[in-house]
């Protein structure tokens, strides 16, 4: 049984990334990441490896982001501030990469939560569809449909951005 520290060492960076693309803005990422691992710490003794640590962890991560969005909505706060910087703590990112990430985040902000989650898990986190449906808990065909719809919407946005209309 891994310890929380071991889980964080192996997966913390990926959880941080997933939370960002699930829609948690930069300013709150450390806190939501922390909340995620607080739950991991509490639930780990009960984990019995009937699924992989990875899918179990992403279930918690997904729920943390979802709860965050709900709270932000209740507080009527803007999820993302205009011109929000990405990677503020990690300055060596080339400008082009930051610009690309900002553009993708703007596209993802247009998606419904369920489509966004599938897109992030499959396209960014590199999960197989069997892993995705373990995390999300939806039927396989639903996951594929959400992924397809998400791709289509994101592609539209990206095309529009290229034409200067976004």
């Amino acid at each position: 049984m891994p310890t929380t520290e071991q889980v964080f060492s192996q997966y913390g960076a990926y959880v941080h990334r997933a939370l960002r693309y699930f829609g948690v803005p930069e300013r709150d990422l450390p806190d939501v990441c922390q909340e995620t691992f607080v739950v991991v710490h509490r639930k780990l003794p009960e984990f019995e490896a009937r699924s992989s640590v990875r899918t179990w962890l992403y279930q918690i991560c997904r729920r943390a982001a979802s709860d965050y969005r709900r709270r932000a909505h209740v507080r009527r706060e803007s999820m993302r501030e205009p011109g929000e910087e990405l990677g503020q703590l990690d300055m060596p990112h080339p400008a082009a990469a930051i610009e690309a990430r900002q553009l993708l985040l703007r596209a993802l902000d247009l998606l419904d939560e369920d489509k966004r989650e599938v897109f992030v898990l499959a396209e960014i986190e590199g999960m197989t569809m069997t892993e995705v449906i373990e995390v999300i808990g939806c039927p396989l065909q639903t996951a594929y449909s959400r992924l397809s719809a998400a791709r289509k919407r994101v592609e539209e946005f990206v095309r529009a951005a290229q034409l200067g209309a976004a």
Partner: protein
Amino acid sequence: MKEELEPTSGSEARSAELSRLIDAARLDLPSGPAWASLSAHVASAWGGGASTGGFEPQVSHGSTPGVEGAAAKVGAKAAAGAGTLKGAGAVVLCVALASGGGFVLSRSASPPAQGVQEPTSLGGGESAKPSSSEIVGLAGSVVAPSGEGTPPGPASAESSHDRALAPPAPLLRSQPLATESEISLLRRAREQLIDAPSQSLVLCRRHQRLYPQGQLAQEREVLMIEALERLARADEAQNKREQFGKAFPDSPLKSRVKGSGH
């Protein structure tokens, strides 16, 4: 929830521009000072305080770690990183263990002090209705479909979680059915990958026979590559890797195939 979506195989090609954005996102992992700051912040939550170094991240840029089982690949490096947790630091979060094991969080300028709801079962949060061929549990045991309409609440959530984590019941399915679903076959193949890669390979080949053009064909190929590598059949793995690149040039799993060996 309404789903007005068309069925799809999920194998649509991506534009070059979208691929560029996704590649940039995949590399978006904290490192250096960002990682040190994050690990110190997170570590403070379970009383370890924060060291100057924090954890050592184990990232291979691009994709997430592989599909290994629970603790199989949480290695010595992680343990070493964990050792650096002990130390003092600016504890910005106060975590108090409340009665019943709950956490109370408080932090200035943080979101409301409200815990994160953990998943109530390993099957996920939605009331998915698995088909009869898909109610094979994650560890191979046969599980009953979750009780739909159960009111959400701490008590029911907890019991649901406990049920999901309970030791597997004696297997009712010792022999795969001829009509075993794609998903069930590959789930079992994945479960066998670490401890019995040759068995995993057998299951993948069965999938290949039954579902040559199945929805999970890409996943099957990835699993086969991983199994071949675990069996030290490097040439075959490499051969398959090249075939995968040609057959699925836009696959989201491409980085996983390239980054095999993790």
